[in-house]
């Protein structure tokens, strides 16, 4: 339990995935509900307690144990700061952290599997993989889904599919998403054109932390919008082929910049590296931008003395919840900016 909160980088993130110079992670989320219980929004305390119990019991299923050791963390047993850290690691949703009643999360040892209970739906199965492995993530999520279905009674309708609290998830209940680092497309101002095109083929684009926030550090999350009337494989294939094209565009933009504006690039990534190495005050927005520059520098082999893993780690560790966990107390915005700079200096220069 402590490890989930203290380590910034989930075990799964330390692995290399395909196309990991551009794709940070691939994620599948399946929304499922139990029949005979109201959705969490309308469930009484007693009902949501029963749902929690039933879903938690599946943790003892032999098939599940064969995949990994799992640990269950009820949200009531951790404090606000700790749940914030889990949000920043993408292991739980802000919604589960802030609004759930009898909410809990079941985490696998390497944190690549997280199963949320009593979020907007009774069950949300999530699988996270490093790099571009959306098919692999679906296979695992599908396997877990089968194990849960064997032990529980899912709300399923022949016509509408898996029934969910929100009509935007009904049908397959699937949300497939890919987190991309697209600095060259942003720098060459091609990003808006591409993102507009993406949204026209039924996919959604979001900033780093999901709904509502602007993109920080050139990170974009692309996911499917449609969950009904298409099969899981169609949905994933559609996302896969669009992302594949974006990766190609980003690669060629990087290659072009490297030949046409090499000096500009070297100047930019090293300035950011210098700032991160020496600054004493760093707000989250600047940190995100500078870390993005350095990451680009590493990917293009312009910077060699920092590892990509340190960058991944810092992207998580410089978020407010983690900083405060690290400091061991609540911090004001100004204090956070100082702690953030300290932490970055420490990690990036060793």
């Amino acid at each position, binding site marked *: 339990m402590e490890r989930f909160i203290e380590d910034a980088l989930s075990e799964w993130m330390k692995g290399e995935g395909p196309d990991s110079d551009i794709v940070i992670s691939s994620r599948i989320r399946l929304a499922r509900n139990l029949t005979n219980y109201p959705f969490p*929004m309308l469930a009484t305390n007693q009902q949501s307690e029963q749902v929690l119990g039933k879903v938690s019991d599946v943790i003892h299923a032999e098939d599940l144990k064969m995949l990994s050791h799992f640990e269950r963390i009820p949200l009531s047993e951790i404090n606000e700061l700790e749940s914030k850290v889990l949000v920043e690691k993408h292991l739980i949703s802000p919604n589960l952290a802030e609004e759930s009643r009898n909410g809990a999360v079941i985490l696998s040892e390497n944190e690549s599997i997280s199963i949320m209970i009593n979020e907007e739906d009774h069950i949300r199965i999530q699988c996270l993989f490093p790099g571009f492995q959306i098919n692999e993530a679906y296979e695992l999520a599908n396997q877990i889904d089968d194990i849960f*279905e064997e032990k529980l009674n899912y709300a399923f309708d022949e016509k509408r599919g898996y029934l969910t609290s929100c009509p935007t998830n009904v049908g397959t209940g699937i949300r497939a998403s890919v987190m991309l680092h697209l600095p060259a497309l942003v720098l060459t101002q091609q990003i808006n054109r591409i993102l507009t095109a993406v949204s026209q083929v039924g996919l959604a684009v979001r900033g780093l932390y999901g709904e*509502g926030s602007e993109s920080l550090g050139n990170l974009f999350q692309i996911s499917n919008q*449609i969950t009904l009337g298409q099969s*899981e494989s169609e949905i994933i294939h559609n996302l896969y082929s669009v992302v594949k094209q974006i990766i190609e565009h980003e690669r060629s933009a990087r290659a072009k910049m490297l030949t046409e504006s090499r000096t500009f690039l070297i100047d930019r990534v090293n300035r950011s590296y210098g700032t991160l190495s020496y600054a004493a005050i760093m707000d989250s927005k600047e940190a995100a931008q500078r870390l993005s520059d350095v990451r680009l520098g590493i990917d293009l082999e312009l910077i060699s003395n920092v590892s990509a893993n340190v960058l991944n780690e810092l992207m998580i560790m410089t978020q407010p919840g983690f900083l405060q966990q690290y400091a061991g107390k609540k911090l004001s915005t100004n204090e956070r900016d100082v702690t953030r700079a300290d932490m970055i200096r420490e990690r990036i220069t060793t």
Partner: protein
Amino acid sequence: MICQECGEKPATLHFTKIVNGEKTEFHLCESCAREKGDSIPGAPNGFSIHNLLSGILEFEPAMGQNIKQQKKVIRCENCGLTYSQFRKIGRFGCSSCYNHFSGQLDPLLKRVHGNSVHVGKIPIKSGGKIQFKRQIKDLKKELQSKIDHEEFEEAARLRDEIRDLEQKISEV
């Protein structure tokens, strides 16, 4: 541009509200936007898919439906949620809502997904029958095309296959 609320941090959220031709602009930093979140769509935490959905749903009376019919209260008998409550919050109360509101759902789901019928995964345990039914439907289509092309040997094989499946359904 500096945040108009705290006057300190740079504004990262720009929002223009036009109500009845009256224009109001907001330029806020992230933390101030978070505080004002409820009143400003697009602010972090303030604007969710549910707001958007209820927006879509609110337009329904204008879609040519009988106004009188709209006034009749449609209620889910299982959880008690009314259709107008659903329209407001954009979320169902329980899985039975799908049945009780079924008359209203097709246009909504088509607007959201471009479709209203599930074609994806079917659960193994509770969906055994449905799986067979879907197979039969596909086979019948194939059978018709074989007959159209006068491939009667193939058609006979398909007919037997369909019969087997129908037998299985009655056993489930």
